[in-house]
């Protein structure tokens, strides 16, 4: 009896001691752990898999390296990615030939995959071949940089690879820094390839074989990803491994809970809070809030230029002068973003060749009525205004204001709130007359925006505009080497945009990154996610 009693006592003491020890170990690692919470989820470890989410992109940036990456610059005191500065990641150096047709990359000699084997030019070739050959997302992306075939990638020696281009293309190099062209350990991947799946898509979806800053520890799709630092990785700035020993990416669907977590210090950083929560957290002043206007994205009200009455340019102009811009901006975003309305263009010319630029439109119901009269519809008409459920928190108040304001010039609006899949289907089939959407371009150059969002009979041409002049200038500008001429083309494109008003740019919403005051190094990235490698704790 006494023996079992004392044994029991011993067990209790031991377990208490153990739990105390465990507690102190936990406390120690907490500051070296980054806990990132998000409303979305990671669904694949290979960003190339069709259907992969933005959170999956962010994880892949930490687990894989690319040949090159974007530098960063300061914009109004905040760090943002720099499209103009491309630095080596796996490449130690790169050269672009004077005619712009050849890019040569020399790999770092010390670069190793996570299994310890060196990164070779063969691996790079296999990985790039995969992006342009396999049925993956990267294919369409690299197409925008004139890379379409495996023949374009050539191994010169074990540490040198050459990329040839059919035309000098400004976007070729930046494309290699985007999310998709990850460099995979080809030996490992090939070992898991099958006859049906020569590019190991199925295996790489749930496993990684990269050289990146972090290794995957646990991957639970829809719940969490836990990553451990790869101490060998030295591609950080300057030549160091990443700061955090562990990164936890956790899905927390409820925005209010995410706000609570970061305020209580249980989460370190979050980028997708509701604007109202961000505002109150900022007012309390305990946390660091970095708001960067998403300068590669635009939210707009779009009209289908092929469907009556929006095929009439005067109707579109009437709408452009009947939107209550200021109220919408306040109601939807609490003013967090940069507005694209209310500009004054001296003698009616666009102020720059960049896209997007603020438009000379404001709420002016008299002018709107005149345009409506000119369109032959002085009494107005009825139509629908659609938005998707996923954007309801910003689009719903906006839609109500649009309805109220347009009613004043006789346009009756029926608001349609569509499930996301239904909305994308209807947009793809060009069935929606009048709706709001947001776009984003990873490589935000004027011609890229115009080519992708204003030309062709394709999904991203939301307004279904078909203007041959615009299409021609945009195509030409793509390969325009002279910066001054490129700017001129941009101005022309912006002028056509304003005279046609195929759709009405509203604003660029802010990316509000809310983080513990100890977290430093946050940079706004082209993929609008947190690059965990940038961060450290002071």
């Amino acid at each position: 009896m006494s023996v079992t009693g004392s044994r029991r006592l011993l067990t209790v003491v031991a377990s208490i001691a153990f739990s105390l020890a465990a507690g102190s170990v936990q406390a120690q690692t907490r500051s070296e752990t980054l806990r990132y919470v998000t409303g979305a989820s990671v669904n694949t470890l290979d960003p190339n898999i069709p259907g992969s989410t933005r959170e999956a992109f962010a994880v892949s940036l930490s687990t894989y390296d690319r040949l090159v990456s974007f530098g960063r610059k300061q914009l109004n005191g905040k760090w943002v990615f720099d499209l103009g500065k491309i630095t080596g990641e796996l490449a130690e150096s790169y050269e672009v030939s004077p005619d712009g047709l050849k890019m040569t990359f020399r790999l770092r000699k010390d670069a190793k995959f996570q299994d310890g084997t060196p990164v070779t030019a063969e691996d790079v070739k296999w990985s790039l071949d995969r992006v342009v050959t396999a049925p993956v997302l990267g294919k369409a992306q690299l197409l925008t940089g004139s890379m379409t075939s495996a023949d374009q990638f050539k191994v010169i020696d074990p540490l040198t690879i050459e990329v040839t281009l059919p035309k000098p293309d400004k976007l070729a190099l930046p494309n290699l820094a985007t999310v998709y062209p990850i460099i995979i350990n080809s030996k490992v991947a090939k070992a898991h390839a099958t006859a049906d799946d020569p590019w190991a898509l199925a295996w790489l979806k749930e496993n990684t074989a990269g050289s990146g800053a972090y290794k995957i520890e646990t991957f639970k799709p829809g719940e969490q990803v836990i990553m451990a630092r790869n101490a060998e990785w030295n591609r950080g700035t300057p030549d160091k491994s990443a700061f955090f020993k562990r990164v936890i990416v956790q899905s927390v669907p409820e925005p209010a809970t995410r706000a609570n977590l970061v305020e209580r210090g249980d989460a370190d950083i979050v980028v997708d809070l509701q604007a109202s929560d961000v505002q109150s957290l900022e007012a309390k002043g305990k946390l660091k809030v970095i708001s960067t206007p998403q300068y590669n994205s635009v939210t707009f009200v779009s009209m289908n230029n092929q469907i009556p009455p929006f095929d009439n340019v005067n109707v579109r102009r009437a709408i452009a002068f009947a939107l209550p811009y200021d109220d919408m901006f306040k109601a939807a975003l609490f003013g967090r973003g940069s507005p694209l309305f209310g500009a004054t263009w001296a003698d009616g010319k666009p102020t720059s060749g960049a896209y997007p630029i603020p438009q000379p439109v404001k709420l002016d119901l008299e002018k709107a009525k005149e345009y409506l009269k000119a369109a032959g519809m002085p009494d107005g008409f009825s139509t629908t205004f659609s938005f998707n459920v996923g954007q309801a928190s910003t689009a719903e108040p906006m839609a109500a204001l649009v309805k109220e304001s347009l009613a004043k010039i006789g346009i009756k609006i029926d608001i349609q709130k569509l499930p996301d899949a239904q909305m994308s289907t209807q947009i793809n089939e060009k069935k929606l007359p009048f709706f709001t959407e947001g776009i984003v371009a990873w490589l935000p150059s004027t011609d890229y925006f115009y080519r992708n969002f204003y030309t062709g009979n394709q999904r991203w041409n939301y307004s279904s505009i078909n203007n041959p002049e615009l299409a021609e200038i945009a195509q030409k500008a793509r390969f325009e080497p002279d910066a001054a001429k490129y700017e001129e083309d941009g101005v022309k494109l912006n002028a056509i945009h304003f005279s046609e008003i195929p759709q009405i740019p509203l604003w660029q919403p802010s990316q509000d990154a809310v983080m513990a005051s100890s977290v430093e190094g946050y940079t706004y990235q082209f993929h609008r996610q947190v690059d965990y490698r940038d961060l450290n704790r002071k």
Partner: protein
Amino acid sequence: MAAFGATVIRAGRRFLSSLPALFGVLVFTFLLMRVLPGDPAVFFASGPNAGNEEIEVIRKQMGLNKPVPEQLMLYLYDVGSGNLGRSMMTGQLVTKDLRERLPASLELTFTALLIALLSAVPLGVLAALRPGSIIDHGVRFFCALGVCVPTFVSGLLLIYVFYYLLGLAPDPTGRVDIFASLPPRRTGFLLIDFLLAGDFDGWWAAFRQLILPALSMALFVVAPLARITRASMLVSLGSDFVRTARSVGLPWWRVVVTYALRNAILPVITIAGIVFSTMLGANVLVEKVFSWPGVASYALDALLSSDYAPVQGFVLLMATVFVIVNLLVDILYGIADPRVTIG
């Protein structure tokens, strides 16, 4: 023993007879998903550069390029061989997703139902013993409050008070503290798995994590359970056998518990069965608010993105659970009232 064997045989027969209904549910959901507007391929091909080619790839991957009858045959074949398809959303097999998430939902729902029953039955009995008294009104008020406040409001309130203000509860994200290690998976029920692993700290952590969501779910269902208990207790307290029991001078608790309550419990069991099935499938909001990795929030996300396979899998699962719960309720009937048998 023989009676027990007979019950098992009858239960088995009952289950077999519900298979056609399950088959109907399967086909119906399959067709319903295809009739709904929204093309999943377009939705999932929403990368910055996804064009028609990408949409076609996904359509092929999901098998949507074939005619619907052929898709149905393939789907039925797959289901027959235990494969519910693959979710586009999580990239996993639906069976795997459901297997991982169902225990989470079940654990939460069981705990919530237990809390609800433990509070609703005594409350109902108390109210029935003193109808019209202050206790009765108090119970009625409490029930009305519980039903009026939607679960996500009570959930957010509980979080605000116990996590945000008082700091008593752990952060409301999932089933266990993110920094804690999980026990080896045996049943999928964390409370049981931690016990089996002998990890009491872990058990306590999981329990703390569970208590708030279970409470907010329980609050909502206390009302129907308490009201039903009260109503049927009133009937049985007013009946002849209770009067007889009282007149022969049995102790009051014996009258109330053994004679009145046992006779009054039947409708409560029925309602509890229905409440359980509803809670399991319909408490999306609690799962969302507490980031609980359960099946209901999984199905909602899938529905919003028109991800066919998970929705179909979820409906089939719910139908199966409903059949099993009903069967269980019928068996419990037999125990509560020997006059009732299933057949």
